[in-house]
């Protein structure tokens, strides 16, 4: 067999010739850690005593990598790494800009809090059925979705996090869970399949899957290709994932059925991946189509937030009420996307970060309340204040924070969104935001009054409910998340600086494209169109 040394191949045409600095590996570190520790947990599945320590170690390391990545991006701008030494767009690119790094960081915080809360909430059986492996795999999928720079790869990560979430959702296999999981699984799978369909059309039109490459080539096919149709299909698919109004009925049907720690993690993380994808697609890739769809997105946002708050008012079960509050929060984030101004995007991203922390904490809070009241029904709730005044303090902080009242973290993003709406004369959107705030305040105020201030009715229930101290793991994770919302509410300056920078980056997608394709490292392009490598299976 003749060797190929007959002619010299210049590898530098298509490959990275100098190894990237070690610190750039931070962009893949969180998901590598997640997968390695997930596998370790799977191997120690029978050893339910040791497994939590492995999982918590993994989650702590993931958070450490997320913090390191955030710091790196903050100092040096977008971090790009392409798998297999290929120059983009030949390999799968991972690109962490400020938006991805911030979402990954908050996801890491919420994931760790969930892992700690689960020490108490998930029993031996739940551990043996694989709670921790599912948790770590879902966390890896979520983090990777925030960091990937390749749109087909994004689809793969959506499926990874989806299968992890299926596992968590049916853990325990109670009747209620199976019912909720069936609806959740079908509708989410449908949404991801539609996303894949949109990717197929996009590939057929633009001929590449690398997001930065799509962004710079979209302008040249805009006159001939059906980009508006593709953008609308993306909007439909991701709105379904994010639980925006007409396609959100899977959320209230399923989020209250699993263990409370699973509900909390879902509420904090899953819908936000959909919101992240919308921001990424409509600002980095299709900003012209975003301008055309802005009116539609604004109406969807307004209806989502108002119907979410109305749903919350109508629920008797505390967990289902929280499910509707998740939806209402999605409306706020979509309002930021619809406005598309620097102020609006800053507010939308800030709201997403706030919602991730606060919604998870609220479910954790509901878990403690439900355990002490023998159930989540508001019409039988009561008597918590006399037994747990400290829990009342935490509850008040979180409930005021979710309704956007000062001095907690919900206030600032709402103020930004209202200002951005009034700036462009969209008074009806500002009205919807404020109306949602009022209705949310009524709904959560009623929950607080009934659960804490009302005397417990029915004497036998009082004695039957658990009396002992709440475990340290549960209190620790809840207090940690609560302190975060208080700290951000009182001192929002650094967060606003970061979200403002994110908004600036999103509005200038050329910066993202330039980081993926530096001027001195562009591969020589043949006629053959896209030549991307194989993806993970």
């Amino acid at each position, binding site marked *: 067999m003749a060797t190929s040394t*007959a*002619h010299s*191949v*210049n590898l530098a*045409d298509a490959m990275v010739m100098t190894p990237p600095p070690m610190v750039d590996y931070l962009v893949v570190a969180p998901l590598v850690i997640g997968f390695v520790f997930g596998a370790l947990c799977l191997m120690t599945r029978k050893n339910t005593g040791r497994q939590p320590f492995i999982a918590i170690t993994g989650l702590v390391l993931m958070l450490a990598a997320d913090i390191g990545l955030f710091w790196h991006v903050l100092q040096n701008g977008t971090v790009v790494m392409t798998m297999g030494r290929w120059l983009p767009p030949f390999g799968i690119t991972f690109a962490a800009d400020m938006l991805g790094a911030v979402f990954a960081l908050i996801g890491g915080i919420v994931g760790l809090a969930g892992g700690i809360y689960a020490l108490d909430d998930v029993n031996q059986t739940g551990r043996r059925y694989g709670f921790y492996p599912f948790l770590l795999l879902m966390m890896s999928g979520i983090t990777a979705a925030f960091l990937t720079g390749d749109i*087909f790869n994004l689809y*793969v990560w959506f*499926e990874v996090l989806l*299968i992890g979430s*299926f596992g968590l959702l049916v853990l325990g*296999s109670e*009747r*209620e*869970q*199976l*019912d*909720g*999981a*069936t*609806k959740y*699984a*079908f509708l989410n*799978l*449908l949404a991801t*399949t539609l996303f*894949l*369909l949109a*990717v*197929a*059309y996009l*590939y*057929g*039109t633009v001929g590449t*899957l690398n997001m930065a490459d799509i962004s710079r080539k979209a302008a040249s096919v805009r006159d001939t290709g059906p980009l508006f149709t593709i953008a609308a299909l993306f909007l439909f698919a991701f709105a379904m994932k994010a639980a925006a109004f007409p396609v959100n009925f899977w959320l*209230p*049907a*399923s989020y*209250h*059925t699993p263990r409370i720690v699973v509900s909390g993690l879902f509420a904090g993380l899953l819908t936000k991946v959909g919101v992240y994808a919308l921001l990424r697609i409509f600002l980095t890739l299709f900003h012209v189509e975003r301008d055309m769809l802005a009116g539609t997105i604004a109406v969807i946002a307004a209806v989502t937030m108002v119907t979410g708050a109305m749903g919350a*008012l*109508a*629920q*008797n079960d505390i967990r289902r009420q929280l499910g509707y509050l998740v939806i209402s929060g999605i409306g706020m984030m979509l309002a930021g996307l619809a406005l598309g101004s620097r102020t609006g995007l800053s507010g939308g991203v800030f709201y997403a970060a706030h919602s991730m922390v606060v919604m998870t904490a609220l479910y954790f809070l509901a878990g403690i309340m439900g355990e002490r009241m023998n159930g989540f*029904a*508001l*019409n039988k709730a009561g008597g918590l204040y006399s037994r747990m005044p400290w829990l009342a303090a935490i509850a008040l902080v979180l409930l005021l924070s979710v309704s956007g009242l000062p001095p907690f973290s919900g206030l600032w993003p709402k103020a930004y969104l209202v200002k951005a709406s009034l700036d462009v004369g969209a008074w009806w959107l500002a009205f919807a935001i404020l109306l949602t705030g009022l209705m949310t305040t009524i709904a959560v105020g*009623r929950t607080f009054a009934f659960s804490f201030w*009302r005397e417990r009715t029915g004497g036998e229930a009082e004695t039957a409910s658990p009396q002992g101290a709440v475990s340290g793991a549960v209190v620790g994770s809840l207090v940690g998340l609560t302190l975060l919302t208080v700290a951000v509410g009182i001192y929002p300056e650094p967060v606003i600086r970061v979200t403002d920078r994110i908004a600036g980056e999103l509005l200038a997608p050329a910066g993202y494209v330039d980081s993926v394709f530096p001027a001195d490292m562009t591969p020589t392009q*043949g*006629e*053959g*169109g*896209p*030549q*991307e*490598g*194989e*993806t*993970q*299976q």
Partner: protein
Amino acid sequence: METAMAFLTGLFFATSLYLMLSKHIIRVLLGVAVLGNAVNLTIFTTGRLTREIPPIIPDDAVVPIDAIANPLPQALVLTAIVISFSFFAFLLVLVFRSYQELGTDDTDEMREAEPVDEPAPPLGY
């Protein structure tokens, strides 16, 4: 050839939508499975249908001189097939388990998580 493939994928989409409109969860499941294949065919077609031209590069060239068959859609379809097959397996078990537990596969009667007789929240103390 693209026209014929377009009609075929259209048929797949129509079948899957019809099945997914059913009340019975097992038909919805079959619809989802057909939908996955419809999307796979779409990816295959959008990657342009060409003859099987192997990517052989002559000795004196560095890149292929003529057009070659595009391998990327096949890689994408392969990934999507693996994913949709594993999801189909999971959903099949899930549907069977919920049929066992709930005793129905009619989505109108699957109200365990959202009971019809759920009381309204109290209006006052």
